[in-house]
């Protein structure tokens, strides 16, 4: 119903509402534009000098315009209180409890996305900027902390299970970035000094999206939407949505790697 808008293929549970709101708003805009535009053009043709020598001092007498303006106000009111505000409330106030969702921390930096899974214990290990090292430990994760032992970190690769609520806790190390995934209809600034949680439910696996779009190498992309310096255009991450099993398998392997004693550490 909203294909005509040219939005990217939809792949999240809440996205439908957003699309239809955008859709209806644009229908409303089109009606206004065509309505007003039609009247406008008609006036230009009918009242051009050559055809209408003497202007009419009073012009329009009817109050139709007042009604149309009230109409505009009413429609805007409906879009606002009927849709926009409630949907936003759902985004913000009805965040699922952590135990029902996959919680993952995504930290933006110039110019990459650091992904951090708490691992089986569901607890994020301590991080400390003193331990931070661009190559080996970009998050400054303190491996000596028991909670950190099973933590998994990746760079620019966000793996998610399909049809399960995901809570992404957004952070930033340096400047403001913005975490946007067009197909999920999510976008949120990552602001240094704050941790901002957002949630959504991916509904289409990467594999399925590949068959749907017919693009063999299709990938969900994380696009940084906030100017963050010269690498802004290249601050690109990837989301891989898998079935619950595939995802569990992937996570277990990473956990194993992480907890294995590493001679270099």
């Amino acid at each position, binding site marked *: 119903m909203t294909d005509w808008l040219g939005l990217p293929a939809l792949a999240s549970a809440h996205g439908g509402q957003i699309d239809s709101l955008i859709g209806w708003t644009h229908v409303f805009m089109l009606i206004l534009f065509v309505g007003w535009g039609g009247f406008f053009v008609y006036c230009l043709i009918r009242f051009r000098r050559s055809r209408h020598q003497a202007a009419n001092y009073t012009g329009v007498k009817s109050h139709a315009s007042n009604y149309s303006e009230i109409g505009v106000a009413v429609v805007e009111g409906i879009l606002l209180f009927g849709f926009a505000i409630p949907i936003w409330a759902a985004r913000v106030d009805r965040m699922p409890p952590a135990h029902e969702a996959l919680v993952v921390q995504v930290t933006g930096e110039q110019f990459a996305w650091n992904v951090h899974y708490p691992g089986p214990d569901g607890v994020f290990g301590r991080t400390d900027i003193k331990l931070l090292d661009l190559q080996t430990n970009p998050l400054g994760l303190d491996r000596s902390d028991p909670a950190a032992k099973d933590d998994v970190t990746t760079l620019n690769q966000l793996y998610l299970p399909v049809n399960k609520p995901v809570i992404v806790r957004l952070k930033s190390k340096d400047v403001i970035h913005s975490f946007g995934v067009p197909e999920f209809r999510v976008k949120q600034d990552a602001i240094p*000094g*704050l*941790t901002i949680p957002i949630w959504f439910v991916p509904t289409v696996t990467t594999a399925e999206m590949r068959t749907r779009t017919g693009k063999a190498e299709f990938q969900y992309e994380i696009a940084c939407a906030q100017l963050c310096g010269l690498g802004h255009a290249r601050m690109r991450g990837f989301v891989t949505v898998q079935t619950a099993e595939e995802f569990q398998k992937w996570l277990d392997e990473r956990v194993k790697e992480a907890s294995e004693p590493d001679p270099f550490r």
Partner: protein
Amino acid sequence: MTSDHAADMTGDHAADIDRHVRVYITVFVALMVLTIVTVAVSYLDLPIAMAVTVALLVATIKGSLVACYFMHLISEKKLIYAVLILTAVFFVALLALPAVTHSNGYWIPE
């Protein structure tokens, strides 16, 4: 009224200038007293909320005294009032700004 003075400085105005001057002196005394009060109160080490209210209250009184008498707002023209009321409204909007930022975000500050 002040600008009317300015407009025509006839003898009989001199009289109410004297009245003005007396007012200025009283206001000056009041300001002094209030200054002492704020400082004194600050040494009482009241709980912060209390201290803030008292300090700002006193400051506001002092401020209004200056504005009303030294700046003659007490007897100013409608137009000036209009401008200042408008400003006051936006000033409030501006002060609401911090509240906006802290009170209503869904972030977890560190």
